[in-house]
């Protein structure tokens, strides 16, 4: 062969030998390469298949539709509104700062926040979508969609935002939602909230969070290396949240809030027949819509610093001395327990002493009411009558009796934050104070409890509930905002049965009649303390006025000097129910520092009753009214 002939020539040996070395070396490299290929393609194949798929299939959560909230008449109280965010994925944008500048120049992102946004983007992971503009107006969103290709890494994200048509008037009853915070995530099951952007914080939104929330779905999006979605695969459809139907009457809620005219206070109206809360207003309030769009820390601090406490739910958390509004309840207990007979009279000379040299307890009417029965004592709100009654019942009797009406215990309303209030007793005083000098009970304390002062404090909700119990002549239902829940799958509306919470059954039905009649006389009697208000009513109602000396709410921050005088004024209270023979509404109103007597609170109560009864009172009852 030719090869052999060349081997023979000088120098060929080296060439052949060295060629062999190099060929052997390459053979070795071929083996290394083969080993590498087998490792990658055969041994680790499934690993790399997973990686290739992970490259393309981006899992994404689909937020469920949060349940909506309707009032008793089907009016929308809390709705969902479609909104668009402009999101930027930093790692997909070629030049983040430049992209942001162009977005600003074209008006998609508000100018003046460049530095702030850049800093926020720097702190968030570069692969995570970041909202550079929340709530893009619809026409802007359309304009952006056309120019999307100019902005690598920027996209529009549609989402449902919460809308509260009632605004501030519904704030404390309905509550609000806010973005799921880092603190929420610590506390909650992260798998449940993956893909759910909002969480109910207070009110119905907060306490019915689990029903309203729904569950997130999942999809995988086939994406290319530039983050462009190519195809979607739905793995799991999101399950919408349940819709709620409230006992609340939207119109009444608005009206009650308006009647408060931004004064501090609360209105709670319930349907005595089932405990449905018709209106639950705390004033002043905040606009829950502000929380939806993401409230900045300055505004939030401002709300919390406001001395009028707009974030404080007075209706369930505010504790006030009930003043004279407690008298009908005490009267019923006195009749039921035999401390008084309906016909029994006493003489009021305008003041009361426990003993000859004890402190003088004055009646609101200096000259006294003269001779009066229990009926007159309630109608004219005689203090001396109730000083004496309290003395006879003793604080223990009062303590037990007021518990029948639900005072001193949480009512169990279906929103959070309720405070039980205080119905004093000797045992209570011993446990409430650590200093032995403060622990003993004085007879004078019993006396003032008789007119709803002293240590006795109740919430407006409790007061409304007790009034409802009188309206129902004994039965009290657990108060509730939500009457029915609509199953998101079947669409069926499941009504919740009213839950009795307390029953008072005195030996004689006469006792109820006496108390109710005395309350009717408050509004409609010739000497009724609220006869001016009663005269304007087109129906017969029962009510009771009250004023209570100021025991200030927890006050934070300084109070404006001009406000001090106003802040020392008495609180104005009013409880009522109507129509008297077939009650459909019972309420309690408190206007903080509203001045003495019936004025402020009674006017609010009358407006609420009028509004509700205009729609709900059977015509014959309106006709038979005086």
């Amino acid at each position, binding site marked *: 062969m030719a090869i052999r002939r060349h081997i023979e020539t000088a120098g060929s040996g*080296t060439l052949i030998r060295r060629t062999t070395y*190099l060929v052997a070396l390459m053979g070795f490299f*071929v083996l290394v390469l*083969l080993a590498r290929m087998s490792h990658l393609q055969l041994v680790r194949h499934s690993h790399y298949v997973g990686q290739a798929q992970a490259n393309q299939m981006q899992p994404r959560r689909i937020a469920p539709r949060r349940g909506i909230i309707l009032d008793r008449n089907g009016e929308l109280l809390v709705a969902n509104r479609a909104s668009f965010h402009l999101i930027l994925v930093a790692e997909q944008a070629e030049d983040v700062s430049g992209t942001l500048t162009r977005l600003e120049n074209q008006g998609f992102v508000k100018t003046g926040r460049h530095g702030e946004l850049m800093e926020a983007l720097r702190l968030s992971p570069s692969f995570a979508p970041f909202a550079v503009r929340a709530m893009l107006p619809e026409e802007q969103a359309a304009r952006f969609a056309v120019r999307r290709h100019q902005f690598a890494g920027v996209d529009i994200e549609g989402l449902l935002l919460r809308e509260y048509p009632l605004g501030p008037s519904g704030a404390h009853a309905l509550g609000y939602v806010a973005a799921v915070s880092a603190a929420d995530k610590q506390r909650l099951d992260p798998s449940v909230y993956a893909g759910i952007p909002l969480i109910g914080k207070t009110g119905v939104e907060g306490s019915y969070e689990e029903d309203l929330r729904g569950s997130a779905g999942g999809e995988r999006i086939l994406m290319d290396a*530039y983050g462009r979605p*190519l195809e979607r695969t739905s793995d799991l459809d999101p399950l919408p949240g349940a819709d709620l139907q409230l006992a609340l009457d939207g119109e009444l809620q608005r009206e009650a809030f308006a009647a408060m005219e931004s004064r501090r206070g609360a209105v709670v109206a319930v349907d005595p027949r089932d405990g449905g809360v018709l209106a639950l207003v705390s004033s002043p309030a905040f606009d829950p819509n502000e929380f939806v769009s993401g409230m900045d820390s300055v505004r939030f601090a401002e709300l919390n610093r406001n001395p009028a406490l707009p974030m404080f739910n007075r209706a369930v958390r505010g504790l006030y001395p009930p003043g004279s509004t407690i008298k009908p309840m005490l009267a019923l207990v006195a009749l039921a327990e035999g401390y008084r007979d309906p016909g029994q009279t006493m003489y009021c000379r305008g003041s009361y002493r426990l003993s000859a040299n004890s402190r003088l307890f004055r009646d609101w009417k200096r000259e006294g009411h003269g001779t009066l029965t229990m009926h007159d004592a309630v109608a004219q709100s005689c203090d001396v009558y109730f000083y004496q009654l309290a003395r006879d019942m003793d604080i223990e009797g009062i303590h037990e009796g007021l518990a029948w009406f639900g005072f001193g215990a949480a009512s169990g309303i279906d929103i959070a934050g309720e405070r039980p209030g205080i119905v004093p007793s000797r045992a209570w005083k011993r446990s409430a104070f650590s200093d032995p000098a403060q622990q003993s009970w004085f007879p004078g304390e019993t006396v003032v409890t008789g007119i709803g002062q002293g240590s006795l404090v109740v919430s407006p909700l409790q007061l409304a509930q007790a009034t409802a119990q009188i309206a129902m002549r004994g039965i009290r239902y657990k108060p509730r905002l939500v009457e029915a829940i609509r199953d998101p799958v079947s669409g069926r509306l499941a009504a919740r049965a009213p839950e009795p919470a307390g029953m008072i059954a005195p030996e004689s039905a006469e006792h109820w009649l006496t108390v109710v009649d005395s309350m009717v006389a408050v509004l409609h009697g010739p000497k009724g303390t609220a006869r001016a208000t009663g005269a304007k009513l087109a129906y017969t109602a029962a009510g009771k006025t009250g004023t209570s000396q100021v025991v200030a709410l927890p006050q934070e921050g300084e109070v404006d000097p001009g406000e001090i005088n106003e802040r020392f004024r008495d609180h104005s209270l009013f409880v009522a129910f109507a129509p008297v023979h077939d009650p459909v509404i019972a309420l309690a109103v408190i206007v903080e520092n509203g001045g003495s007597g019936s004025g402020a609170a009674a006017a609010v109560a009358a407006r609420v009753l009028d509004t509700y009864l205009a729609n709900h009172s059977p015509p014959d009852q309106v006709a038979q009214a005086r």
Partner: protein
Amino acid sequence: MIPAAASSPGFGLLQRLKLDGWLLVWVALVVAGGLAVLYSASGGSGSVLLFQCSRLLIGFSVMLVLAQFSPRFLAMTAPWIYGAVVFLLVLVLLVGEKGGGAQRWLDFGIRFQPSEFAKLAVPVMVASLLRESRQAPRPGRAMTALLLIAAPVGLVVLQPDLGTGAVLLLFGMIPLFLAGLRRRFIVGGALTALLAAPVLWVSLKDYQRARVLNMLNPEADPLGAGYQVIQSKIAIGSGGLFGKGWMQSSQAQFGFLPEPTTDFVFSVISEEFGFVGALAAMLLFIAISVRMLQIALAARGRFSRLLATSLALGFFSSFLLNAGMTTGLLPVVGLPFPLVSVAGSANVTFLAGLGILMAIHSDQRYLAR
């Protein structure tokens, strides 16, 4: 079988054109398969295909022309060829076009990369220099050869193109080694390289250093320097035994794999045709290289044999280097996959080299007759 028929009378035309049937068949298979892969890797782009065809056409023409010259003529003109290429390399540094942080291109109506031509010119020059001595080259001559290698290598490194520079050094050293460079030179050179390594490391540009470090641990920076290798390994690994099928490379189609039509085309082959396809590609390159070695061993004259052997080994190492790079065995240095990558100058050079092989073959055949 066509190869068997190559020596039959029916292939008189090939002989008259001084072309080698075996080489042509294997190269044709690589080129045809390569075009199919390119079409897929480019996401079905006709323009990429058209560009590649035009460069391959130039390459085949150059091959056909070079096949006509006798090896003796080539040996004599070697200094001129070498000189011309070195001149072009100097020109690159003076008026070259920038691309990717380096100056690699010349544009005379048609863009080309002189450093690729050097991969052929350098072994031709070295083989020509060493063709006289039948013994191992004397120290003086060996030094001359080393300088002749060092000059273009230096110019290419200055561009800077470290990968091509290293390959050029390798292609120059192969004929020197084959010619019988004394062991003490080899040992001395290895020691020098070892000592020079730290100095070289310091003088490297940041991105070059990153590439070397990154080869050692690509996962350290998955979205930065390591990204290319990681995505390439995903492409290869996800191909499995039989691959995802033609036009099914998700890594290339969705843009995860960088440079799918140039440096990382082997990853696309491996992803779409699997282990079997990659093995077939490797076997084709082995077949071409074996045929080249066959011609080399049969060649007459020291120049022919030195050069043919060098070109055969050089061609196969080009394949190995690219495959090693895409599988993460070697640093990513931007070496094309022979005859398949969209790399005009490189492919023209590869085909020119095959033309020289064919010239050597017909020279031997002519004389053997």
